[in-house]
């Protein structure tokens, strides 16, 4: 048994009072959970504390909170570990972020999480009639690809941690986009291209992920939502060539094209090429692209004024000494019929155990 200090965020909207912190002492063995600690306080000191929980085994996804600022399931976090990470040993527990608070540690999952999940049409749109007399199953190879997205328990931890949603509440977000990949990667679904085109066209869609890894870090089930978002983008541009108005397609084409040409990034060309769907000429002539270029102009001028950017650097970019070799690698890999991918969720990632790891080709050709 050990003594722990819990600092809980309390809030009751009906009281008319602002949220406040309340301190409690609990006594538990270190291997018990933060949820056990909260329930002990509720049992012994204050029954009015609001917390949502059910299974206590990281399956139901009900007890998502922020522990010492980090989104997690309270039942899946050892109280001893939390105390080690807490400032001065104090464990802070707050409701999840990016969602309205109903009471104390209970957030309104309906207002944000479920609304966004519904946004991506989270059901199968079959491309053919289901076979009669047997189960309509996903082929094993394709199952490998969607298993990771299917592991989601809808706890909302990733939504709570999402740094893009923090400044743009309308961003579809990590959980819903991972759910979208679950169907885009499912060969039984007949609406892959429509789904991707929809998510690419949305101003708050799949191109608004800022690569911050917060969702990957907090997910209790290793769904790696950001990796699923990258897969959506890869399929949208690589397999379907979907051009969007958010420069998602253009940015990828521009960046990859510049590395193929020069080996390192020619920054001065990245913006115009991104605005021109990968083309420098389109980026400097199409009205919409020019408008965006003009918007970015003051930044460039400031760079020139401080000597950060020189006219020479803006116009000329040296190729790597062995750029021919880099181009050869691009050509070799782009000529594959299948993209070679290694998903560590499937093969394991323990470098000591090399036996089980094999590369799986992706299903799209």
């Amino acid at each position, binding site marked *: 048994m050990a003594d722990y200090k819990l600092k809980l965020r309390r809030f009751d909207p009906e009281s008319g009072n602002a949220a406040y912190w309340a301190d409690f002492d609990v006594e538990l063995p270190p291997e018990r959970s933060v949820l056990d600690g909260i329930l002990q306080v509720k049992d012994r000191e204050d029954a009015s504390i609001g917390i949502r929980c059910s299974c206590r085994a990281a399956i139901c996804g009900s007890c998502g909170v922020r522990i010492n600022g980090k989104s997690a399931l309270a039942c899946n976090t050892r109280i001893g570990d939390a105390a080690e990470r807490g400032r001065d040993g104090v464990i802070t527990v707050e409701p999840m972020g990016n969602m309205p608070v109903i009471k104390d540690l209970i957030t309104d999952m309906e207002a944000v999480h479920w609304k966004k999940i519904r946004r991506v049409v989270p059901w199968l749109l079959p491309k053919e009639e289901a076979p009669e007399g047997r189960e309509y199953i996903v082929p094993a190879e394709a199952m490998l690809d969607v298993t990771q997205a299917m592991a989601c328990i809808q706890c909302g931890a990733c939504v709570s941690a999402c*740094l893009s949603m*923090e*400044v*743009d509440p309308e*961003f579809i977000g990590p959980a819903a986009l991972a759910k979208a990949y679950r169907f885009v990667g499912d060969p039984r679904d007949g609406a892959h291209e429509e789904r991707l085109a929809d998510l690419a066209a949305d*101003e*708050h869609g799949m*191109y608004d992920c*800022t*690569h*911050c*890894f*917060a969702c990957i*870090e907090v997910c209790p089930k290793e769904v790696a939502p950001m990796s699923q978002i*990258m897969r959506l983008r*890869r399929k949208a*541009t*690589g397999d379907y060539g979907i051009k969007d108005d*958010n420069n998602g397609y253009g*940015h*990828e084409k521009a*960046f*990859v094209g510049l*590395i193929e040409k020069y*080996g*390192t*990034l020619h*920054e001065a060309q*990245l*913006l115009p090429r991104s605005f021109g769907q990968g083309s420098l000429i389109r980026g400097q002539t199409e009205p919409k692209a020019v408008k965006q270029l003009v918007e970015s102009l*003051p*930044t460039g001028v*400031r*760079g020139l004024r*401080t*000597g*950060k*950017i020189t006219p020479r650097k803006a116009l000329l970019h040296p190729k*790597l*000494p*062995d750029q021919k*070799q*880099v181009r*050869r*690698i*691009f050509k070799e*890999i*782009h000529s*594959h019929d299948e*993209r*070679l*991918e*290694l998903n*560590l969720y499937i*093969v394991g*990632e323990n470098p000591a155990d*090399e036996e089980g*790891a*094999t*590369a799986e080709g992706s299903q799209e050709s």
Partner: protein
Amino acid sequence: MKLAYWPGCVSRGFTPELHGSVAKVAPLLDLDLVELDRAACCGAGVVAEHNQELVDALNARTFAMAQAVEGAAGMMNICSTCQGAQSECQERLDASPEYRAEVNSHLKPESLSYERQGDWWNKNFLWILVEEIGLDALRDKVKRPLDGLRIAPFYGCYIVRPTKRLGFDQHPERDQYIEQVIEAIGGEAVDYAGARKCCGFPVITMNRTTSLRQAGRHLADAIDAGADCLVTPCPLCHLNLDMQQPAAASYVERDLDIPVLHLPQMVGLALGLEPKELGMGKHVVSTRDVQRKIAQLAAA
């Protein structure tokens, strides 16, 4: 200590002051750097989004070049994004000999091959400072303690998440290193909300509003916490926090005007280098207030 050195693209592009300050600082820290001038871009997450095998091949090539540098203890990068993007590739390459062989097949014409060696590493300058040089050794080298300078750390996402991939099991304090370095060189680390959040740079072309609201908010938080400047080990963060700062101000509807130092610049100041030698005139947001404080330190 001899190191294979990957400077990245942006340090030789829009943040030349970073590349220059590393060149000045390295000898003072007894770092013998062998620049990998034939290596290609790490992909910055974008090539990975396009094609995994391609980004793994480009970085395996860089690693192979680094492994071929005779007598090098490891490889150094100076960009959080390079660190994260390359660690992601290294994790895959190390996980499967079959996959590694497939990727290495693209390097054969150059007689290169990335070998999984248990003790070979690729570390950001920040990690080198703390883990290889050591905070005590750094403290001994300080010529001008940055006494009274209030510095807000800005890590960059790629160097702090995901912790599982970035060696936090062995080095659990990697998300505290900037504070530790600031304290070792006599400055005061400022605690504020944005230190480990996203600068917004990756979406600057896709969603300018989200991007600059992120940058603006963190800069404003640092100002409100009383910081004199920010410091970052990531030149991409620097682009959004410094170069885009005047634009970011309009997205958060307030004045910002807070200088952002590159990590090697901050260390260089403490090691006695002059602001000019560290390219501190090449920032969009003027560093004159920091320079004035440094000059006062010298006079004191």
